[in-house]
């Protein structure tokens, strides 16, 4: 079974972003970028399936400017076999990404597609569900466990009250949650090997997808600041303050 994973290049999770003075977005110049953490989990899961003999080939797809190829190389160093890069400098929104992934899935015909549940930049949590809908495939979102069966894939999902297990008819789409696995660090020999793995370049036009944004960002602002910082010396004082000043306990 071929497995396709989508990977997104985002601002590193440890960077605190700043809003631009002209309110058009956040400051991205000279900021450390990395693979979206949930996408790392997706790649790791695909690699583990291959190590268990359940997957035969792993294709890693990313979309955006030239620099996305670094993110694809990271996936290749973790163990993906080849990459597909849809190269564009246009702003990409989830629906357009899902449409382009659909075109790639139709050409590649994987048995399983794995995406991260959410990208930590726009926090949308949409692309996997949209892609599954467009393909008419079943979806196992927020997965903490994947079981590949005969013609079916069982997925344990993290839901608000606990866990839910669904059985999906293959081919299927899965989005990853935190506890699915712990991604590996690529070893130096594997990073070297990844440089030789092929990355195929495509364009939105060649895939026949109109990527015009459906949502227009009017402005981006700083969130209201919280005034914190009062330290109390004792539990007595804390409880007094909670009662008298905050009024949150009787």
């Amino acid at each position, binding site marked *: 079974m071929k497995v396709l994973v989508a990977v997104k290049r985002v601002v590193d999770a440890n960077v605190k972003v700043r809003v631009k003075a002209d309110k058009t977005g956040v400051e991205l110049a000279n900021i450390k970028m990395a693979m979206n953490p949930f996408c790392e989990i997706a790649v790791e899961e695909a690699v583990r399936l291959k190590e268990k003999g359940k997957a035969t080939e792993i294709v890693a797809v990313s979309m955006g400017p030239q620099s996305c190829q670094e993110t694809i190389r990271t996936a290749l160093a973790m163990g993906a076999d080849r990459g597909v890069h849809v190269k564009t400098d246009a702003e990409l929104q989830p629906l357009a990404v899902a449409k382009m992934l659909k075109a790639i899935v139709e050409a590649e015909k994987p048995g399983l597609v794995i995406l991260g549940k959410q990208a930590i930049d726009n926090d949308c949590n*949409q692309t996997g569900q949209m892609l599954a809908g467009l393909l008419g495939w079943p979806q196992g979102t927020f997965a903490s466990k994947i079981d590949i069966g005969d013609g079916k894939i069982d997925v344990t999902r993290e839901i608000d009250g606990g866990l839910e297990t669904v059985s999906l008819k293959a081919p299927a789409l899965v989005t990853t949650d935190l506890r699915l696995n712990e991604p590996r660090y690529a070893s130096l020999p594997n990073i070297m090997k990844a440089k030789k793995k092929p990355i195929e370049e495509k364009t939105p036009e060649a895939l026949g997808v109109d990527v015009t944004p459906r949502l227009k960002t009017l402005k981006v602002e700083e969130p209201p600041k919280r005034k914190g910082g009062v330290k109390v010396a004792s539990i007595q004082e804390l409880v007094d303050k909670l009662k008298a000043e905050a009024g949150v306990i009787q």
Partner: protein
Amino acid sequence: MSALVLAEHDNNAIRSATLNTISAAAKVDADVHVLVAGKGCDGAAKAAAQIPGVKKVLKADDARYDHQLAEPVAALLATVGKNYAAILAPADTFGKNVLPRAAALLDVAQISDIIAVVSSDTFVRPIYAGNAMATVQSGDKIKVITVRTTGFPAAATTGGSATIEALAAAADPGVSNFVKQELSKSERPELTSAKVIVSGGRGMQSGDNFKKVLEPLADVLGAAVGASRAAVDSGFVPNDFQVGQTGKIVAPELYIAVGISGAIQHLAGMKDSKVIVAINKDEEAPIFQVADFGIVGDLFKLVPELEAELKRRAAK
């Protein structure tokens, strides 16, 4: 035109997140309808009809909606939703699962996790873990929206008298089956609707300490218990305890962060709480920058002391 709210329910009652979503929907369009899709969901439909401001309840009662799986419910929304100006659901694991799929079937964008309605086509939503607020305008004919429930008040549950209309089931793609649910059993209030939350982080050191140290304090306060991602990753507590950017978003009256350093991903999930208390041994921990009241010290000493003090005063 009207706004359609996809109800989250257990066939008998409407879950509270739906009430906040209805308040958001009323700001998008005054004519609010509610879709209740389930099996044997008459009770939930009747409950929805009593919510003031709801004009009509659409009830799709069919075996295929038994567990409200994304595939059949999104297919239903893609049919019914065509005639609406907006479709809304709470931005919890239920809404996030179903709504983007429905949006794709309708060929429209989704506006995720809104915290404010500026006008019928313009909304405010947090990005980058809440470190920036984006105001976005949708050019689509149908606005598909998930609602951050902490951004809107809950609608009342009585006083309304909407009509209930039975809806024919839509075609089921038939590609998914429900197997089982394992829900955490707890006497405590639900995290997302609790008035008080006691949350633990890596500083708790073990799952055992959550039980021995944190839970007695939560008992005294009638609080829900939450956790940081670090505590979940370390296996101290299950994932559904997680408060943060990729877990649950909460805004209780009182949030007590115990042994939580305050990474931006955690702050994203709780910084709208009315009062924040931080207990941490590291006085430089970023949690103190957002805490209304901070106390520096050993949590294993301070938490039992707080519990005892609250008990002592309650006994007076």
